[in-house]
């Protein structure tokens, strides 16, 4: 059975603050037609990782059901984003000597160099999520993106490898499998997916840095030329800002969260010059009302975000990826909504910074057009690409029947549980 032309894909992100689900189809022009979307606050997810499966599973079920209801269609292929402190990245170089008599580089040599680079030893509890070709080098002097047909003595492939703890990735996959009765088609590291949603082909070609400031984890990825040349994560996000505010201003967490959400009404992430003079009223813990200068709040937020960007910059610099982001940086995730964060990032990273906007959306996209939804959106485009690469082998009819039966069973089971 050939695949339907505009197949419904589903992107799922189990985030620290909310679970986001987007259903849509990728149209031939690379536009995404949004069919349905849902965002449900998540509990028991700490720093991007599930800590209590039963609770998260319930919320995930609700989110999937809400998206399905809005779309009026059944959920099809699910793609899942993963993140967390366990995700690590490494840049590895593999080389091969060109043994052909005419020393012309063949496809085989490229594959061999790539395989040598992929050979980076991992302990068995790790699982590789992505390999990206960064570039090839011939004789250690020429850097090219496609070496086939060129003449050289020695070919080096430079690849970027993203890997994580096998069991923690599996935890998320199992949740999807338990809810849907069939597993997620593929898993992607969230900034990689986000890049597919917000960066146009020209921006990628020129080089761009994407920073996803989430609630629990901040991920970043540099896209340049053919793909992702570097990525990473730092388990620091808006939760840390809120916690800093709660401890610094001595207010309860919900109040701190409210202060951060309403920051735009009185200040910004970059300290304003007259901040000391303006006062904001805060209910203190058991001590009546206090008046706190706005500058205090701003300072706490600024220190935290500045440190976050400095750490990202340090990593990018030490891995030689900063200069590849020639086109500037885009911010996404919930943290991108903090007023003044762009100016702060610009100041630290020394490059133009903008808020990410999802590219080429049609359909019911009002809800998902915010920077918080880019990861599940990117999963759709990424998923489409993965299916195109791996697919068109038609399934034998009995296998198709098996899958359909499993799906039907899942639907009935969920209906009953409701």
């Amino acid at each position, binding site marked *: 059975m050939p695949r339907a032309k505009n197949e419904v894909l589903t992107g799922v992100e189990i985030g620290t603050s909310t679970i986001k689900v987007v259903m849509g189809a990728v149209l031939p022009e690379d536009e995404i037609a949004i069919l349905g979307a849902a965002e449900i606050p998540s509990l028991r997810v700490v720093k991007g990782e599930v800590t209590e499966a039963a609770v998260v599973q319930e919320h995930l079920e609700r989110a999937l059901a809400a998206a399905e209801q809005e779309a009026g269609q059944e959920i099809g292929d699910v793609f899942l984003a993963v993140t967390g402190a366990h995700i690590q990245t490494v840049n590895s170089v593999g080389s091969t000597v060109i043994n052909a008599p005419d020393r012309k580089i063949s496809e085989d040599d490229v594959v061999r160099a790539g395989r040598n680079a992929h050979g980076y030893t991992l302990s068995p509890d790790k699982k590789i999520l992505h390999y990206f070709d960064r570039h090839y080098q011939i004789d250690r002097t020429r850097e090219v993106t496609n070496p086939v047909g060129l003449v050289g003595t020695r070919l080096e492939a430079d690849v970027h490898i993203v890997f994580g703890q096998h069991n923690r990735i599996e935890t998320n996959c199992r949740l999807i499998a338990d809810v849907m009765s069939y597993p997620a088609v593929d898993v992607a590291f969230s900034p990689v997916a986000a890049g597919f949603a917000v960066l146009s082909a020209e921006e990628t070609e020129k080089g761009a840095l994407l920073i996803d400031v989430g609630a629990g984890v901040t991920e970043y990825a540099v896209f340049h030329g053919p793909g992702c040349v570097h990525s990473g994560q*730092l388990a620091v996000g808006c939760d840390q800002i809120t916690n800093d505010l709660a401890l610094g201003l001595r207010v309860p967490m919900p109040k701190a969260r409210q202060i951060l959400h309403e920051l735009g009404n009185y200040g910004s992430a970059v300290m304003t010059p007259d901040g000391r003079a303006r006062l904001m009223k805060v209910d203190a813990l058991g001590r009546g009302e206090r008046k706190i200068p706005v500058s205090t709040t701003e300072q706490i937020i600024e220190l935290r975000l500045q440190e976050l960007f400095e750490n990202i910059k340090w990593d990018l610099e030490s891995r030689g990826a900063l200069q590849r982001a020639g086109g500037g940086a885009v911010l996404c995730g919930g943290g991108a909504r903090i007023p003044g964060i762009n100016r702060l990032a610009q100041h630290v990273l020394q490059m133009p910074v903008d808020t990410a906007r999802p590219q080429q959306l049609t359909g019911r996209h009002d809800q998902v057009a915010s920077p918080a939804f880019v990861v599940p959106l990117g999963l759709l485009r990424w998923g489409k690409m993965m299916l195109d690469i791996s697919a068109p082998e038609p399934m034998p009819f009995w296998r198709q029947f098996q899958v359909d039966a499993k799906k039907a069973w899942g639907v009935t089971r969920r209906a009953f549980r409701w």
Partner: protein
Amino acid sequence: MNQNAGELTVIGLGGGGCRIAATLAGLTAGSTHWQLLAADTDTESLSHIQGAQTISLGQEWVKSEGCGGDAVLGERATSASADELRSLFEGSRMVIVAAGLGGGTSSGGVRVLARLLREMDLVSLFVVTLPFAFEGSWRQREAEKALVPLRDLAEAVIVVPNDLLFTELTADTPATQAFTMADGMLAEGIHGLTRVLSAEGLITADFATLKSILRQRQATCALGVGQGTGEDRWQAAIDSFIKCPFVGSSEALADADAAIVTLCGGMGLSVGEVRSCLTAFQQYFSEDARVVVGAYADDRMGDDVQITGLLCRYRREETDDAGTDEQQGPPAETPHQETSPKRRPRKGKALQTQGGPVQGELPLQEQSLGIFTGVQPTTIRGENLDIPTFQRRGIHPDVGD
């Protein structure tokens, strides 16, 4: 004759590696528990080697003349002979590669070997020397260039800077003797290491243990040899092990995450004696270190005893996993040991730098975790990022009281 026969292959690569192989052949004369190979591009020097199987590499590339220090040529020559090497490694479970980096064959060849061994999925251990400073900066640079990719490709790399030997050498030592010493010490070390596995030993470690230690990603490995004689011979051996130029000091032992130690004595060696030595030796290691021990008797030792040891320090980012997954506690008989001697000074230092800038004006900033109490901390370069930034920077926000 021996159940380990053929399981272990030692290969000397390049001029320096072949000298080590030749020394090893002398040490082990007649023993068949391993396969000893010597590979070089220079056929002339290979013809002098006795007791090891010789392989001349990439004859169509170098015309038996050696590489003349050209690492790329060395790499091509070695990869041209890859099939021959592969067939020789077939059937081995572990391969030890010895090479003196800086030369063409060794600098280029180690990469090819590392790749080959990985493809064959064999446990590999690279013992490489860095050239003496008097050999010239060009060789030094070549050696360092070869070392960088090797660290990523190989499972375990032992780097022995030859210059460290100078602490033991007097100024009037002839250069040839310096080389002989360096080769001799490495050969002893490799010999000791392999004897851990040898079935003739009094105490042996199984292959899986050795494998699990070597398969961790290593940061630094050091190989040491110590000898003792006379009344208090074990203590003398331990002392000389610690003073061995490649080990340096007892701190190297305290910092080690794992160690493979071999004791060797004359035919009269008793298990009780070995035990008392090990108890004394283990005092130097930290509590978490995983120490694998082998002991054997050799009639050539006479009344002398010898300790050889491989000390490994894992890469720091891996320590969390290593700590939880394979905490194979040390034997209980390690009395009144200093608990983690390396951590204590660090804490004190952190407090000092914390208190430094604010002293005199403000009290010490308290540090709290808030909602992140009990959550796995996010640390980067020694800082716990879950603690509010302003607290770590020693800033006291104005909260209006």
